[in-house]
């Protein structure tokens, strides 16, 4: 059962030639004024997948199993004790809990990568370690801290982690809010010289990293460019974005999907 796309009308329908133009649920027909049974159920199926993506916990053991033998990773959690609290209290998701902070090792790191569950653990489950490994390959000569795995995490939790570890830059790889068409999209936020309370305007963002969006190699190339520039200019955020070359395949940069304002 494909829950993501509206069921096509019978062959020969005039919408058939138009459906490739958009993934929007166009030309789905009706019974009276209402949507037909198969479209109502397809929509409910897609919504269920998105809801499950929000509420499914990150499988930390499976994530660790993707690492190479001997490769370290540290597990931390935010101050939000559970998912309902996490959803109501984004402020708690931005701060480490005290036990986690005590466990982190300080060092002279150029960068720390964080795999945070955010609003779609499945996105991070699939994408975070491959991106982290790709980046290690691209960052020869950088002092890269061991991977940090963070649960009940918001983007700004990375700031707290970087401060605790003495890292000059943080890369937060985090699950984006699921939509009906994509429930496993990962976003990446780069912040130079992070501090607790750091504004989102001081970050750079790559979003829509998933099998039908930005690929891991594309995201890695782009992130490596941003990181080198961040180090050269000693900044991230608006100043860095302005200087970025236009890459046609990256369309959603700069809009933090977890922090979107109400005004769309």
């Amino acid at each position: 059962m494909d829950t993501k796309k509206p069921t096509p009308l019978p062959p020969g329908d005039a919408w058939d030639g138009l459906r490739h133009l958009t993934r929007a649920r166009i030309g789905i027909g009706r019974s009276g004024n209402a949507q037909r049974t198969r479209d109502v159920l397809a929509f409910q199926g897609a919504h269920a997948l998105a809801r499950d993506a929000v509420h499914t916990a990150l499988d930390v053991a499976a994530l660790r199993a993707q690492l190479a033998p001997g490769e370290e990773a540290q597990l931390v959690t935010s101050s939000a004790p559970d998912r309902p609290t996490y959803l109501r209290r984004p402020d708690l998701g931005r701060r480490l809990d005290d036990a986690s902070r005590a466990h982190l090792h300080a060092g002279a790191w150029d960068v720390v990568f964080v795999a945070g569950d955010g609003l779609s653990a499945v996105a991070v489950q699939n994408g975070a370690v491959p991106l982290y490994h790709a980046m290690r390959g691209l960052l020869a000569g950088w002092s890269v801290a061991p991977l940090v795995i963070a649960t009940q995490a918001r983007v700004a939790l990375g700031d707290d982690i970087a401060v605790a570890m003495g890292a000059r830059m943080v890369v937060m790889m985090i699950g984006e809010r699921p939509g009906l068409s994509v429930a496993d999209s990962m976003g990446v936020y780069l912040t130079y010289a992070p501090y607790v309370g750091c504004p989102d305007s001081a970050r750079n963002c790559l979003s829509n990293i998933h099998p039908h969006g930005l690929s891991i190699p594309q995201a890695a190339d782009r992130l490596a460019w941003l990181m080198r520039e961040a180090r050269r200019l000693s900044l991230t955020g608006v100043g860095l974005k302005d200087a970025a070359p236009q890459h046609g395949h990256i369309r959603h940069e700069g809009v933090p999907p977890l922090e979107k304002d109400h005004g769309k």
Partner: protein
Amino acid sequence: MGFHASFCGETYSFPDLATLLAVASPARSGDVLAGLGATSDVQRIAARHALADVPLATFLNTALVPYEEDEVTRLIIDSHDRAAFAPVSHMTVGDFRDWLLSHAADGPTLAAVAPGITPEMAAAVSKIMRNQDLMAVAARIRVITRFRNTIGLSGCLASRLQPNHPTDDLKGIAASTLDGLLYGMGDAVIGINPATDNVETGMALLDMLDHARRRFDIPTQTCVLTHVTNTIEMMNRGGAVDLVFQSIAGTQKANEGFGINLSILKEAHDAARGLHRGTIGNNVMYFETGQGAALSAGAHHGLDQQTVETRAYAVARAFDPLLVNTVVGFIGPEYLYDGKQITRAALEDHFCAKLLGVPMGCDACYTNHAEADQDDMDNLMVLLGVAGISFLIGVPGADDIMLNYQSLSFHDIMTLRHMLRLDPAPEFAAWLERMGLYDAKTGRMRELSPGQTRLGQLIA
């Protein structure tokens, strides 16, 4: 000073007006997040008792956000119409509720008093009104606006057709636009949220929409919902700008977070009016608002999210907008947790805006991390329809593939129009009939495929 109420033998005290308003508010997650709001149900009701005894005139003497620091407060105070306020000036908040619900408060009477009502008065009275009260009073108020058609008439429900696409693909947007027109959508506006803030893309989208509108002589207006400064740039470059869009909020600092102030809005308003593109009216502004915006910008000045939201309507009404809508469930569960909170907030926003004379519509919507689903939207659209909402937003199959949230489908709005016997804007309804899309004999939209109507040429 301070406010006090006795309830069941216990005395409750509230140190100031902002606290009283916050504690009296119906429960919502955003006020908890802000550390505001009632700590118990009994405290909440005690606050409502105290609030009901507050004279309306108190709101004129107590600036909840300091006058010197905030241009929205200055706008509210400086534009207050004492003569319009006179008929209710002696009332308390509780008296005001009773008067609003009385038969004496008919549509013309409420319209006459609107310039004398401040946002804070509207917010205060809404907090002691039940959902049915919010609907009953709002349903009497018609705020009528015009550009190429007439929005807000009694017996009408307009719709925004929202044909968004994740890469702003012109043909994809045209396909969604065609789909919506076949359901009778788009009389409020055909309005795109672009995926990028790029001015060239915005110009291309505007050109495509304007070309389609002129080709089929559609009596409506089109809009690319980009930042006001981009729209000013597009007007300077000769772009086909019908309406100026902007998200607005209820404090100067929150508006600064959006990169705007009143003088930028005035500049855009003057420029768009100067284009004289409207055929039957010159309401050229389109605003979006929503509870939680000020708090998310750290700019709520200790006010509860509903009170600070109403202040955005003072900003809106200063610019005679064609359209305003609350994007009620878009902001997420940390501000409005579930279907109950979203529903309540939508009814509050609609009532307060209409009481202030603002042409309010609604994006009845939710995100996938909120405790809400399409059944909640079904309920909400009917309540808003009964309350006389100016317009609702529709997207193909209720699924916005660019913004990743759910709104109403075209089917939903068509269903609502039928159930409540509401028509599109009259000029647009006549066009639907002229184009053969609407069958006046059966009172139904015809079920047509793109090949069966001239409109199919939109995708050529």
